[in-house]
């Protein structure tokens, strides 16, 4: 584990799904699908799309959750209902109230068609400071950063450029593999 660094595990940005900032939500999802098809060597498929500006710099990330949230209807009332968790209600209760409120909402196909045309920049998350990690950072350090922020991935930086994505799934696989190796060494030692 200690010997690994971030660049050993990251997915290079050239293999990741990216779209220009003018893209729509639908174009982003197509890009994700294409990247998933190309990136077959891993057990874990890509789960996000990076949004690039005119200079090919990463300005945001659209996750599967962002995509699904974009399909959710939105108005002032729903925004209030979604804040009920702050008032002590469970997620189940919030979902129940949301369902009740949406009884009269438009059919889901209309929602898809509207959402598909949305601009990706209106839906993406702009990365915060804690979501960047240097390519030469040790894997242990990157692991701390992932768990501290509950992130599903980190953007890997070389100087000012983003050169890849460190995914939780790949870190998990590496850690799990290391754990398996260490356990089998221990049990081999015990049997001798």
């Amino acid at each position, binding site marked *: 584990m200690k010997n690994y660094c971030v660049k050993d595990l990251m997915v290079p940005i050239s293999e990741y799904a990216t779209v220009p900032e003018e893209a729509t939500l639908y174009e982003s999802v197509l890009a994700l699908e294409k990247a998933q098809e190309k990136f077959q060597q891993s057990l874990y498929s890509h789960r996000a799309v990076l949004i690039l500006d005119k200079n090919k710099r990463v300005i945001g990330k659209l996750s599967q959750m962002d995509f699904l949230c974009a399909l959710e209807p939105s108005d002032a009332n729903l925004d209030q209902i979604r804040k009920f968790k702050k008032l002590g*209600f469970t997620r189940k209760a919030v979902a129940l109230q949301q369902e009740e409120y949406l009884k009269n909402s438009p059919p889901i196909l209309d929602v898809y068609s509207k959402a598909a045309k949305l601009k990706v920049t209106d839906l993406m998350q702009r990365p915060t400071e804690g979501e960047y990690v240097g390519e030469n950072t040790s894997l242990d350090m990157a692991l701390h950063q992932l768990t501290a922020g509950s992130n599903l991935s980190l953007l890997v930086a070389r100087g000012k450029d983003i050169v890849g994505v460190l995914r939780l799934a790949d870190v998990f696989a590496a850690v799990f593999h290391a754990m398996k190796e260490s356990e089998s060494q221990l049990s081999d030692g015990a049997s001798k």
Partner: protein
Amino acid sequence: MRELEKLFDRIIQRVNINLRELEFDVNPLVDKLIPTGQMTKFYAFYGITPHHPLNLVFKHANLSGSYFLGQVRVTNSLLYKSDIRGDELKKNGDLFQYQEFNIPVDQDEEIRIDDSFLIKTLVHNYSHDPETLETFFIRDTVSTHYANIHGSPSDGCYLGPFSTVDLTTMRDCVIGAYSYVQAGEINHLRIEPGTVWVRKPGDFNFMYRYPLDQLNNYIYFARGISPQGVFMDFVEDRKEAFQRVFSVVNIENPVTVPTSASLDRFAVIKPKTHIGENVLVAQRAFLQNSWLGRGANAQENCYIINSKLEGNNVTAHGAKIIESDLGTNVFVGFNSFLRGRPNARLTIGQDSIIMPHTIIDTRNALAIPPGHLVWGLINEPKDLVTNSMSLKAFSKIDTRICRGSMLFEGSGGSFVSAFQERIHHILEANGAFYDGNLNRGHAQRNQNISFNTIQPYPKGDKEGLYPTIIIQP
């Protein structure tokens, strides 16, 4: 008057600093809401009884038209036509029960108001915060027309018109118009207008939200205007009747009052009103052509018009009952507005609980069966489907339920019991169960009360400010 203006600016700044995280500015809402000229017009008054400790301290404050009872300290504050009723404060030697703790009270509790601006606000009950047993504090707080601060210490808060915070300590919160909050403790929350929220963590959580477009007909408040809507029109239409009771020194009881009942001399009683045994009528209550049966009560800012209350009815602070017939033990919560029409009366069956901040405003006859829980906005009988439930059925909820804009989670049984126990306690405290010997309450204790008046500087820089006044036995 310069001092008064400086004091206003000081209060607004302090409240805004507390509310900066919520990006809430109280200034546009309350600036010029009460012209300073208005604040010099009215005398303040206080009650003296043999039953309540007397310790009033006023320093650098305007108290225009406000009423005080018990132990109250007001500093650097503006109180406009507010009622600071300290007749339920804890006493030295009491034991305060909180969860598994029994905490002894070391000295008589005091209501302490600092750096606050209260407009037509009622402050009552006692601090339910186990951390501040002997001080019911209200600081850096602005509250507007007909708000209720009931057993709820407040620090850095804004309360919209007709809002109520009940048995809840609040810090840095905004409570929207006509919202009711009873949640134990809240911090840094913005409660939207028309929210009715009752929570006991780990036990139950009730929430109802008014449709804003309809609530705005009843109460609407925005920057630069006075509160508007049916509630304000209703109160303003009856304002003159109160002017008379406040301008006359000796006023005769317009109706027969039994020896076990109490009718405050600052209440308005219009003809053909019946006051039964053990009835309590508080100051600023308005009764007209109504029947109050044994043990019924009408608290501050209540209006009961052309109605019959059979007995043991709690009409909580600010509730209004018009053209209605209420069975025995019906509870009507804070600031509820129940309006039938002369040929379309509203009937509420015995033992029903009308939740705080409920509006029943009907043009068709409407009957609520006995033993029901009612909440939210009801304009016609069909609304009862989503806005009421029998207490028996509600008690059976043990997970969650959603009906229209009402969401409940937790134990329905605990929720109903908590209400029923509280209603019983209110009746007890008000003296509804007095038998001529035992169970004496406010209805009996408030009979012998004297009122004194105090006045501010009439002119100069200090115009409107009251001199430092200490009133003790």
